[in-house]
């Protein structure tokens, strides 16, 4: 009975199937390929199993007396929530009816066409023709989709009239599934935790494979040149904000006097605010405290720098200071509590009056900067600020800075928090270009990128330059070879697709050029080449030359799967090519 029904369906489908296949052959969207690759095999397996279980409840729910013939496929539709409509079974059977060979052919055709599409999208300077072709392709595809839908509806209408009479609007399974799965935007107004899970759901969010062209990012010079004359669009409002914060100065002074310390948070650089506050304190107070400003964001700052500066204020210059921060801190505390003992006897009378009341106002920009983030540093700062004669006003920029302090540390700090949103850009705090390059994994974090390499090379002897040229040339050649090797059409990324199809059809696609310059050149090979080109005569010399590169982080050493050492110039392909050109010139 079931078979018979399948046969009916099969009879019905061919027209549609061929038409769809033809459309597919012509053009397709990139996702299509995935969908099919991922879904069809499993579906085929499933439908190959004899569908035995029937669920009568289902038919009751659907509100129609189901013909016994039609119950066969119900379990499947149960398993896949997406395909609940009764017409689903037809789809299943249709698929089965389609010969596998046709299907495979479809698929490869689809893949090709989709690949072509991807390439077009990626290519920056696609010619006019290409673009129009693509557009045309898309248009046809969309049209086709619609047509398909329409046709389906018609078909289904007929069907429903003929045999089922289902009120629900049946749809073809595949396009439906595709549409749901793709849903590019998350549902709006999700509560925060739901949002998190939405973003981190297994399978991950799909992002495009677009690459940022290398000229999209400015280098140091360009950036600073551009930003030099730039005036913030809201300068007036920013100034107003600052003046609002300035009204709190008196309050802050009072709070600091009351043995509290202050922590300012909120978006925007608070450097200017702090300096302003310093000058306000200095000029309005009758007996201004010693004001020490610390820039926590300064790279390589240590707690010793801060303690030394304070000690420099409190203690005579010639005194030998201990190297241990804790010991230094003890001395500072001691000096503050008993200034008389440490100052010379001549000054005693004088210091009795002034030094006893030495107060220190310590202003720290970005107390949560990466160099001050270590727990030991924070606890030292805490015990430093807990001294009644030391007042601390710190600013914090990161999101989760309160996590720096546990309860005991926090009670030592005695912080009062104030929101000081300034909207002032973090010009001093961030090395913008460096930071973005690092963020995107660009090479310029090493000695200023390509330009830096060129600079270093200029100062190196000729044979070192030659060696580097060989290395870069080899790496570029190897990368190009790797691309050629795998791709059906000699295009980058094709290899990856092949692998995927063969190995794990359902796994997500790798980035198109995951292998950019990651392979490098084998050590022995490079040595041989260098030897051939008379760059060096023995391995010792070769090593000496390489060491220079390592020192400047122009070369990295990696081990491949076989365990042999490979030398890699850590740059992107385009940069390598540019570098090579320069070197050859």
């Amino acid at each position, binding site marked *: 009975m079931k078979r018979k029904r399948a046969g009916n369906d099969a009879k019905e489908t061919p027209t549609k199937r061929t038409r769809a296949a033809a459309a597919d052959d012509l053009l397709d969207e990139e996702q299509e390929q995935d969908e099919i690759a991922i879904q069809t095999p499993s579906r085929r397996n499933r439908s190959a199993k004899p569908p035995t279980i029937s669920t009568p409840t289902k038919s009751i729910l659907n509100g129609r007396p189901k013909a016994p013939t039609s119950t066969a496929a119900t379990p499947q539709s149960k398993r896949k929530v997406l395909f609940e409509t009764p017409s689903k079974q037809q789809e299943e059977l249709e698929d089965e009816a389609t010969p596998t060979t046709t299907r495979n052919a479809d698929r490869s055709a689809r893949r090709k066409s989709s690949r072509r599409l991807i390439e077009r999208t990626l290519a920056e300077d696609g010619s006019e023709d290409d673009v129009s072709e693509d557009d045309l392709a898309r248009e046809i595809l969309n049209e086709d989709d619609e047509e398909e839908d329409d046709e389906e509806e018609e078909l289904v209408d007929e069907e429903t009239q003929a045999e089922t009479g289902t009120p629900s609007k049946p749809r073809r399974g595949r396009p439906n599934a595709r549409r749901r799965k793709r849903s590019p935007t998350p549902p709006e107004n999700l509560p925060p935790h739901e949002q998190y899970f939405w973003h981190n759901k297994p399978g991950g*969010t799909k*992002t495009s494979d677009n690459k*940022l062209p290398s000229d999209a990012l*400015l280098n140091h010079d360009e950036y600073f040149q551009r930003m030099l004359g730039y005036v913030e669009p809201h300068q007036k409002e920013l100034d107003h904000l600052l003046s609002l914060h300035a009204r709190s100065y008196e309050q802050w002074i009072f709070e600091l006097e009351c043995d509290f310390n202050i922590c300012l948070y909120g978006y925007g650089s608070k450097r200017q605010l702090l300096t302003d506050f310093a*000058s306000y304190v200095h000029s309005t107070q009758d007996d201004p405290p010693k004001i020490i400003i610390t820039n926590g964001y300064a790279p390589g700052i240590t707690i010793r720098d801060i303690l030394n500066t304070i000690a420099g204020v409190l203690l005579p210059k010639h005194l030998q200071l201990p190297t241990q921060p804790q010991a230094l801190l003890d001395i500072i505390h001691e000096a503050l509590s008993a200034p008389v003992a440490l100052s010379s006897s001549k000054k005693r009378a004088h210091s009795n009056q002034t030094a006893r009341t030495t107060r220190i106002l310590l202003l720290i920009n970005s107390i949560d900067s990466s160099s001050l983030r270590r727990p030991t540093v924070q606890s030292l700062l805490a015990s430093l600020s807990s001294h009644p004669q030391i007042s601390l006003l710190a600013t914090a920029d990161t999101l989760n*800075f309160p996590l720096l302090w546990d309860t005991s540390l926090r009670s030592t700090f005695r912080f009062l928090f104030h929101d000081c949103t300034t909207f002032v850009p973090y010009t001093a705090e961030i090395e913008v270009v460096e930071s973005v390059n690092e963020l995107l994994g660009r090479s310029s974090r090493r000695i200023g990128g390509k330009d830096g390499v060129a600079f270093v090379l200029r100062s190196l002897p000729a044979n070192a330059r030659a060696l580097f040229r060989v290395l870069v040339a080899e790496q570029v050649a190897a990368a190009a070879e790797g691309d050629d090797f795998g791709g059906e059409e000699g295009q980058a990324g094709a290899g990856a697709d092949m692998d995927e199809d063969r190995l794990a059809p359902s796994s997500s696609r790798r980035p198109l050029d995951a292998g950019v310059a990651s392979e490098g050149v084998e050590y022995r090979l490079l040595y041989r080449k260098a030897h051939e080109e008379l760059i060096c005569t023995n391995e010792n010399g070769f090593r000496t030359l390489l060491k220079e590169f390592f020192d400047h982080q122009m070369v990295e050493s990696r081990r491949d799967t076989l365990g042999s050492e490979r030398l890699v110039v850590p740059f992107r392909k385009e940069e390598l090519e540019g570098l090579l050109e320069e070197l050859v010139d």
Partner: protein
Amino acid sequence: MDHEKCFVFEPEDEHPTKKRRIGSDDWINTWKLRKELYEQFWAHQRSKIESVLNRANEETVTKVLGFITSSKAPESSKLPAGLISAGPNIASHGALFRQIATKLGAADATIFVALTSSECSNLKSLLKSLIVKGTTLGDDEEDDAQTPHRKGPKLLNYDLQLLHDHVKQNAIETVVITFQDTEAFDGHVLSETIELFGLWRNRIPFVILFGIATSTDAFQDRLSRSALRCLQGKEFDVVQTDDLFEQVFLTTIDGNERHLWIGPELMSTFLNRQKDHAQNVTEFIDALKYAHMCHFFANSVSILMSTEAHGKVEISRHLCYTLRHLPSFEVCVSSSLNANNTFRESRGFLVPRPDRPPLSMRHYLFDDVALERLLNDTMVYRDTHSFPDMVRALRMIRVILSKMPRYAHHKLSALYTMMIGGNLLDSPMVKEMIAFLKRAPSNVLLEILNDTIGLLVLHQVEDAYYFETRDELQKLINDAKATDAPLRSAFDERNETLRTTVIAKKVELSKQKATLSKNDEAYSQILQRFTARLDEWLVMTLFYPDELMFAEVFIYDIKSPYRAAFSPKTRFAVERALSSPRDYLEYEYDCYDLSEEECEKQEARDAALSAAAPATAIMYQLYLESGALMNASDLYSAYHAILEEKTDDEELIKALFQRSLAELKYMGFIKDTKKKVDHVAKAAWSGL
């Protein structure tokens, strides 16, 4: 200067002109005075609180010291160990151990070494720091201590022999070692240390103190058996935070001196925070201090808190104007207008002095002198009568409640919060209390009376009634001693019987009072009088702050500064600034052709996404809309599309793009990822 690590601030011009201080003249003029007031009031409160705190720890400290002295003689080979259960709040451990340290420092021939977990990651570093601290801190001749006079090979700096030499040299009798944060130490390190100390016990007189935040059982579990065998422990309990908190709170409201009162809102915020987060008395003290600071800093009428206000602080016209516009004064005036144009005697708070008959409303509204006198009289009366009575009433309620099983653990601070919020008198709790009193047997009443008299003595209030009642009751009890059972009140359930009667086939339940004995009858009368008097007194004494004239002068009840300063929403502030920059900056943006309503709805989003928004805010909006991974190229094109409206300068857009990305990274919104080329990973989800 921007990139220097650390420097001493020098003003740019050599002789800077004095800058004008920010603030109105009036504010600056009175601020000095109010600051003095703040210092005076807070110093008073602080000294009271400190004495309570010291008293609280003192007991434990004395016990611990006694323990240390007693363990000087090494009668057993085991290590004497004091286990100080100081409660879950690690922040308060420090104070306790400092107290012990200062007390011990005074004692001769004792070395005190405090070890913290951070310097003792393993046995070697523990011993090193122990020896360094032990050999230098003990005496003043540091240089001598560094070079032990010893023959033989040079010892390694973690050899306890060094300490032993030092002990012998200086005839040290005890070496006290404290592990303040025991929980933070590695269990193995601790066990090994103890075993090692056990081996040296016959040469170095160790005494170990452990600060324990969890429980002694948990501590024991972490040590090895052989280590446990070396120890001879003694447990010391520290006053628990809850009790300490109540004590501290009571002292802050107690006393006849004028002080600042905390209003209901703020007080309940304090209590909730105390209960849910802090568990820490110092936190409460800080909060109280901050309330004082806020009151005197920002409230211009706080100057009238001055106890010498009369005469010394000249109440200016301006201040009189302010006083007349205080909401509480206005309420009093309008309510008094309904009552013969004079001030209503509101629950005994405004007892006019016999020599000064109450004046008509008009006087206070127009005569500054009269107003000043009124203010002064009320303030003085409150200091001497209303407030102390109120505190006494609270304590009395507390005493009676403690006899009721249901409310036995009700805290005074909670009672105070209800009272100052005006909810106590009408609360079911107080009604139940009165009902309970009515049924109370004689032994309970006697206890209550005794406690009340104790309170009276404490508060130095004379009220003969309670003494008389007690004597009367005592006499009655003595008379009835034959029965030995306590006397029962007429309302006592035991004096009632349920009776079922069947009348015309209907069952009726009726209560019937048993006939009371003569003694019981007499007792019931005493009890009734007592209850009625108490009820009346409570109504008189417990006030409702809204009814208090000039409440603004001495009640502080604004919770937002406290909240902002102590439990800030730091992350939310950043997110808000970026997601709706117009909360901070006023700028115009293009509103599309939407209806006004829709426009408002969309406002925040659009404002943030319009080209007029700050560059980083635009980026943040894009960041909000993307998933866990962001494609930098797509991000750039989206960013570009928005900024295009404003500028044609491609370079500028690039620069701003870079800056925005860098800022987001700096603040910790995004991070780099290796998952995909040219991608950025989200590091924070808004609202989480």
